[in-house]
């Protein structure tokens, strides 16, 4: 059992998402920074798809009525050991501050995993569709699953990933924009807007002008798609984005770089470069 003492600005339960239901209109949801969630699980010996707590801009305080093994990854928050499995004695409270150096989302794994009921195969909170558990509130008590056979890891995870341009490849609707739009996309230092959330990271910069009038019919999209609404300011779709959208998608992020996008804070600058593939 984990008791939520304070949720901070936003804390949700997340695993690797609700895949396979998109054709019925169900977003993928799941941890925005999937690699950080996987590492947190690995540190406490959990399977990679166990549910963890996604903490947005720190501020989470949890009380452990029974002794537990935890691990914290993602954005570095003061208040707990970072990137290693650590034990917490029964009755103790772990209280996290705001992440200092950079990054937005931290992941707290508990050995055994957060064992709330799964909905359509996932324990993830989908803030757009209202699927899965509600966002966490003070007083919530989250069940913890049985400890896995695998022992906690003695490893230490890397603290942070240095910022770098996010890799994109052009998408089928890139031809809705002028020939120079791809150049503008990759030569601009975009600013992350304050109205960004798990549905989309909204960017400010020069408007990407459309060269084609009219409305696109609703088209399927994917987390990581860069959608451009009528005002020309791109939105990088996040895990809770709807599965279809009516705005043209100019480019798609490399899958691994979506994790980095999940760490962008309002006010951060972000750049893109063309290229995909692993690495």
């Amino acid at each position, binding site marked *: 059992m984990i008791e939520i003492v304070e949720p901070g600005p936003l804390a949700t339960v997340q695993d690797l998402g609700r895949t396979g239901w998109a054709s019925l209109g169900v977003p993928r949801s799941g941890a925005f920074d999937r690699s950080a969630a996987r590492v947190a699980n690995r540190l406490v010996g959990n399977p990679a798809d166990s549910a963890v707590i996604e903490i947005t801009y720190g501020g989470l305080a949890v009380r452990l009525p029974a002794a537990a093994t935890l691990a914290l990854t993602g954005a570095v928050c003061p208040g707990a050991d970072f990137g290693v499995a650590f034990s917490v004695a029964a009755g103790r409270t772990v209280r996290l501050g705001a992440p200092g150096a950079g990054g937005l989302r931290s992941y707290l794994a508990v050995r055994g995993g957060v064992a709330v009921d799964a909905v359509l195969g996932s324990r993830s909170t989908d803030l757009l569709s209202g699927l899965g558990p509600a966002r966490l509130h003070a007083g919530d008590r989250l069940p913890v699953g049985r400890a896995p056979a695998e022992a906690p890891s003695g490893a230490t995870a890397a603290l942070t990933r240095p910022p770098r341009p996010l890799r994109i490849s052009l998408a*089928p609707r890139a031809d809705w924009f002028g020939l120079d739009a791809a150049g503008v996309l990759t030569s601009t230092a975009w600013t992350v807007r304050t109205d960004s959330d798990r549905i989309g990271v909204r960017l400010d910069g020069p408007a990407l002008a459309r060269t084609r009038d009219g409305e696109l019919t*609703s088209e*399927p999209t994917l987390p990581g798609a860069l959608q451009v609404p009528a005002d020309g300011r791109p939105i990088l779709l996040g895990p809770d984005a709807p599965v279809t959208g009516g705005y043209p998608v100019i480019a798609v992020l490399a899958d691994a770089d979506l994790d980095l996008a999940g760490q962008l804070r309002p006010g951060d600058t972000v750049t893109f470069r063309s290229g995909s593939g692993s690495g």
Partner: protein
Amino acid sequence: MKVLPYGERAVLAEPDDPHLVPGLRAAAADAAGVIDAVAGACTVLVVFDPARTSAAAIRDALDRAELHVDAPAESSPAVEVPVVYDGADLASVAANVDLSPSQLIDLHTGAEYTVRFCGFSPGFAYLDGLDPRLHVARRASPRTAVPAGSVAIAGEFTGVYPRSSPGGWQLLGRTDAQLWEVTRDPPALLTPGTRVRFVPA
């Protein structure tokens, strides 16, 4: 049909005839290594696991499927959705298209529809087959809360709001049918390719 790259884990298929979208989606969903096949109004996004398949293999599967997919078969009976036609926009839509409300209701109940795709929110089905006389624009300003079960039209589509949400479609009526239940399999009443009729409740 065009099959276009969409990042390193997906392709977007655009058949020449949008009515092939549900059949193409179903065929793509069955291909090896496919994680999700999602339909839109005119396109199908096929998301795959690059460790198990490739864009080229998906393209081949789609090309083969295109040869024998057709508009959805009439094998299974249509789902009947009972509607009380008392929607907030019924009178104004009827006036705009020079019909009486009862003529509008006759047109809406007289057609058979097919789910082209689901999107917007879980279980929200875009139904193909709306009489062209009822193709109307969305409301200039969307409502902040459309009640669950609202039966509505916009553009070439009709649909039912599965749960209360913001929305800009024109409201014709309401149904008690449960469009979305996570404990049901499948959770959506109206899945891609399903045939649908509206009947006065």
